[in-house]
């Protein structure tokens, strides 16, 4: 009897699949977002220094608000730019 692993597909069935988005703060239990941690905040802004939407990062609403708060604080205190080109 052929097991599931023995079946060969003509094309890789995983190619068309989308990976499910998730909120990293919920998954890893990160409760506090530090505005001084620039490297971490870089995950949530694009090359121009703009905040990435939830659509892309997958953050939950609660943590997206905290991220935006932290990024704005970092900008105010001169750790992140308000406008930039080719940041990454």
């Amino acid at each position, binding site marked *: 009897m052929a097991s599931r692993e023995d079946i060969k597909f003509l094309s890789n069935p995983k190619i068309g699949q989308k990976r499910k988005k998730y909120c990293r703060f919920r998954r890893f239990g990160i409760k506090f977002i530090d505005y001084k941690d620039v490297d971490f905040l870089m995950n949530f802004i694009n090359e121009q220094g703009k905040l990435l939407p939830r659509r892309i990062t997958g953050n939950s609403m609660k943590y997206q608000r905290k991220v935006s708060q932290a990024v704005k604080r970092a900008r105010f205190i*001169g750790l992140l730019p308000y406008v930039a080109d080719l940041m990454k």
Partner: protein
Amino acid sequence: MHPLQDEAFLFINLLTNFYHFVMKQYECTFIIEPVLSGDEIKQTAAMYTDHLKNNQCEIVHIEDWGIRQLAYPINNRTSGAYFTVEFKTENGGLISELELAFRRDERVLRYLTISLDKHGVKYNQDKRAGLIGRKRDKSKQNEEAPAGE
């Protein structure tokens, strides 16, 4: 121990607990002019921390970041000396006093005071204990794939 003494001890304990409950924790980051000499920068920062200490603040931690490049020029300066002071106080009015002093002081380019919630307090404790960096690295490995743009 005498039973009455015991009670008194308990009462004092309760009082101190309450006192700590009222004490809110704040974190203040400020940027000092880089053109000053190293000693002058330290003196300026010490002036503010002493001011806090003199007003019954409990200083939790002082961090000297050293001179850092700013992301954009502030007052025509491209770098600044960063300091972060974490303190506990029950007197919120002290914050406005501190910020007034910052505003009047030409040596301070910018300041930001935030109040820390319980997660923030714990985060800073863990960070000082060196727990955060490792955790972050681990989560970063897992994060990279789905965060694609």
